[in-house]
């Protein structure tokens, strides 16, 4: 059984369609509502997802870790798919990644937007992302082509070794580090990111990437 884990924070306008798109492919979807101030949690529940609610806002990394622990508490859970709440991931990509994890006996499949040319981020975004990739590779010793991509497939044994301490955005590098340390087989899989106007508006600012860098260096 596969569980889709979605960190959720103030995405009331899109979360309903994200969950409804996911449910036909993944019957078990858990949203970790990170103390949203809007009606995200209620909408997610009505859309058919399990909802775990943080009483206070902690950050995406904390929400992801909570979601992983929730999924691991389900005895039938074999794979965990991490999925963003803002609708920029494609369900087909997630399905293909789980299939690949099964057939190729992979413990971790990272989604990468840079393995093919379907995704076209703007120049500034591309520079920031490539810097993040470089930093992630240097600090983790892995060879990835994309970083800070929310779409991942993690097998149960690998997920059990994840313990994210970066509550905020720097978790995306931390999770690569922790998964890399497991020594389990992994691969990257080409995915497309849908840069909708909504996700662009919500996306991370240039300044926030400085926060991520400082979070990672100063601990």
């Amino acid at each position, binding site marked *: 059984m596969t569980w889709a884990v979605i960190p959720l924070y103030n995405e009331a306008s899109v979360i309903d369609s994200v969950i409804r798109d996911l449910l036909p492919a993944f019957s078990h979807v858990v949203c970790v509502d990170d103390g949203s101030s809007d009606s995200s949690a209620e909408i997610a529940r009505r859309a058919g997802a399990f909802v775990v609610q943080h009483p206070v806002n902690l950050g995406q990394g*904390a929400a992801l870790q909570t979601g992983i622990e929730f999924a691991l508490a389900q005895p039938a859970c074999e794979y965990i798919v991490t999925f963003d709440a803002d609708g920029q991931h494609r369900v087909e990509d997630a399905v293909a990644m789980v299939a690949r994890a099964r057939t190729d006996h992979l413990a971790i499949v990272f989604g990468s937007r840079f393995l093919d040319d379907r995704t076209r981020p703007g120049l500034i975004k591309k520079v920031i992302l490539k810097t993040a990739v470089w930093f992630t590779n240097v600090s983790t010793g892995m060879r990835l082509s994309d970083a800070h991509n929310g779409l991942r497939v993690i097998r149960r044994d690998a997920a059990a070794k994840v313990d994210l301490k970066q509550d905020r955005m720097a978790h995306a590098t931390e999770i690569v580090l922790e998964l890399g340390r497991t020594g389990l087989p992994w691969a990257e899989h080409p995915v497309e990111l849908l840069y909708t106007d909504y996700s662009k508006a919500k996306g991370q600012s240039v300044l926030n990437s400085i926060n991520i860098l400082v979070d990672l260096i100063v601990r």
Partner: protein
Amino acid sequence: MWIQLLLIIAILVLGGFLMRRTGADSHLAIRRIMMLLFILAAVLSVLFPQWLSWLANLVGVGRGTDLLLYGLIVVFLVFVYSQYRRNLALQRQLTRLTRRIALIEAAGETRAPEDSSAAGDLVEDDVADGGYGRQDRGA
């Protein structure tokens, strides 16, 4: 001189406040000894200002007040660092607490009443890794 009396009272009162127990800590005794030494030095400096100037000259600083300022800057940086560490530790505790609450609440909500095993698991788990001895503490 009045100023000397006022300064000594201020030092003693503040020192007394800072020596109070704020949290069970193995560093508490060391902090208290340091505080005692600090109070002693502060009171002596108020009574015999020349002493500070003598010390300043010894280490190549012009005046006693300059030496005081340099010392203050160093102490302030130590303070900022220790508060930062403490903040991180507190944030970590808040995260774990919040997560535990969220998971227990979710387990109670999403399961049928006859299957309450998961909630029990969570509580047991909490006891298992929450022992006092192994808990990491802040600075």
